[in-house]
């Protein structure tokens, strides 16, 4: 059987890739995708735990996370659309009206 540690490692790597993507990309859409990446890494580890711990809680949690991720994407994109209507900007360094 595949050791649990492998799943943990995989999940950690994808999570950090998501973090890095979030930090370095200028495009808000890609940042949103990076967040989805992070959430998916969490899902992977939760499903793996669920399997190895013989407990369903992890999978139930994943179900909720997917739900929330969908809601989050909908709202995030709605905000982006609202922003886009006022100012055709999808890059974070173009929306620095407020600072200091």
């Amino acid at each position, binding site marked *: 059987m595949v050791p649990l540690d492998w799943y943990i490692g995989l999940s950690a790597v994808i999570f950090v890739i998501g973090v890095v993507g979030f*930090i370095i990309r200028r495009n808000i859409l890609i940042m949103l995708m990076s967040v989805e990446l992070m959430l998916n890494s969490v899902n992977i580890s939760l499903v793996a735990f669920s399997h190895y711990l013989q407990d369903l809680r992890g999978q139930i949690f994943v179900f909720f996370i997917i739900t929330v991720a969908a809601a989050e994407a909908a709202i995030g994109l709605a905000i982006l659309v609202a922003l886009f209507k006022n100012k055709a900007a999808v890059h*974070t360094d173009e*929306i*620095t*009206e407020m*600072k*200091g």
Partner: protein
Amino acid sequence: MDKYLLIPLLPLIAFTINIIFGKGIIKERAHWIAILAVLGSFAIAVSTLIEVLNGKTINYDVYSWIVSGSFKVTVGFLIDQLTAIMLIVVTSVSLLVHIYSVGYMHGDKGYYRFFAYLSLFTFSMLMLVMGNNLLQLYFGWEAVGLCSYFLIGFWYEKKSASDAGKKAFIVNRFGDFGFGIGVIMIFLTLGALHYTDIFAKVGTLQGQTINILGYNIDLITLIALLLFCGAVGKSAQIPLHVWLPDAMEGPTPVSALIHAATMVTAGVFMVARFNPIFSLSETAMNVVALTGAITSLFAATIALVQNDIKRIVAYSTVSQLGYMFLACGVGAYGAGVFHLYTHAYFKALLFLGAGSVMHAMAGELDIQKMGGLKKHMPVTYWTFLIASLSIAGIPGLAGFFSKDEILWLAYNHGTIGKIVWLMGTAVAALTAFYSFRIIFMAFHGKFRGTHEQEHHLHESPKAMTIPLIILAIGAISAGWVGIPAALGGSNAIAHFFEPVLGHPHVTAAHEEEFMVMSISIVAAIGGIFVSWIFYSLKPEIPKTLAAKFKGIYTTLWNKYYVDELYGFIIVRPTKWIASNILVAVTDGKIIEGIVNGVPQAIRNFGERLRKLQTGHLQHYAVSMAIGLFVILTLVLIAAGR
């Protein structure tokens, strides 16, 4: 509701109503609320006095604000004989001044504001005298100071008024600084803030010393002197007396209420209240007695040559306050408070009379430009005369009994007592002289002002004269509660105060008392007589004297150059340091250097820090990630070890 609580609460309610609705709804009706409130307080104060006369004392905490260990911040009332008298003084004078102000302040654009401040002041003063703990005293102390600041600078458009307000505020800071330290020291050494606890424990401090810069200083003396510092500031004693004469820039009712009858006597009240502490330190007592005597003499001499009617009365106040401290210093606290009580009436009357004169003279204050006012304003004249007779110490009037009690008890108090008695008697003569100088110059003789002013002369409205008459009754009769045994009285007031303030035991015979009494009567009558010769019979004498003793005259005229001295030793060096040294240090930015230096440095730092907040989303995420990274590193290293 608790009736004692209502005493300070009513003026507070009046203040709140007037300050909130005064500008819009109430406007010219502001006085009704204020007067009704203080009338209510007065009525309750009278009923409280009756209870106290029947032997009841009240001491309880109304409300605990913060309790944290032995640090208890509470609002509580201690109503004993001392407080009961103070309540009567404060509420009655305040009531009369309120009524008087209806006429005096009529038509002023800050009418509602004036009454709001008066109410606030009354509230603060009542809190001060009714408190049963040090912090409440301190609160009242600062609050009356603040109200005084507002009221002196009431006509803030006038520069001299706002300057005087600032001066009063700053000079009082010096005194209050010492007072504050005194309060802290009492809490630190005794762990108590309530009077009863303090007085119960203060005996344990006896003999303890504290080492300051290598000198062993008696702890009780130190505490007493620190408290006295506050009294010196608030009651305008030497060397902090300079603010009071300037405070006359405020409206006259304010001078009468705050700067004659009530607030300035808070220092005397405080010393009397803390008599268990003062009595334990002979040094402190002597300092109090001498400060009082010197101030009294000093201020009386200045008053001799001033021409501004309110200034003369102001110096007279300083002088009389000195009298009260003199009394406290010789252990005659009861006599001091008795004088405080009689003084409140005749001095308030003098101020209000002066205000009435000013009203008629369209703001003129110089007595040289007055004269013959007697026939134009008879009520003012007669009441002013009664007040002058009372302050001069003519037998039968209020001032006589209280002043005589002080002099007699001082006379019986050892060497120091004899010295201050002599000074006190001299002051009595001087007081009579300068008081009647006003009478003769302002009310008798020919009018010396302009025609326009003469045409305008009139008696003041009823709202002003009625308080004068009531106060005149007080100036006559207030002293009758203290007729000494030597004159066949029972000296009721001394016995009344005895449980709280004690009473020095005097064994000397009545004959000796008559002697002391006669000397002061002779001094008073002599003063009046000389004044009559100088200012009525032969008006050229003062001018010749002034020319002959030019040095003395100018010294007195310039109030012993104290303001100039302070200007020289405090203000100028400070300015010099500021403009020379600090400018050199801070590149011409004096204010930034002192006041804004540190904040500016922080601001500069903030401005730099602000650059980090770029508005760029990623930078925020990076900051979060860095924060996470740092915390992770630190914690994992700490745990991994």
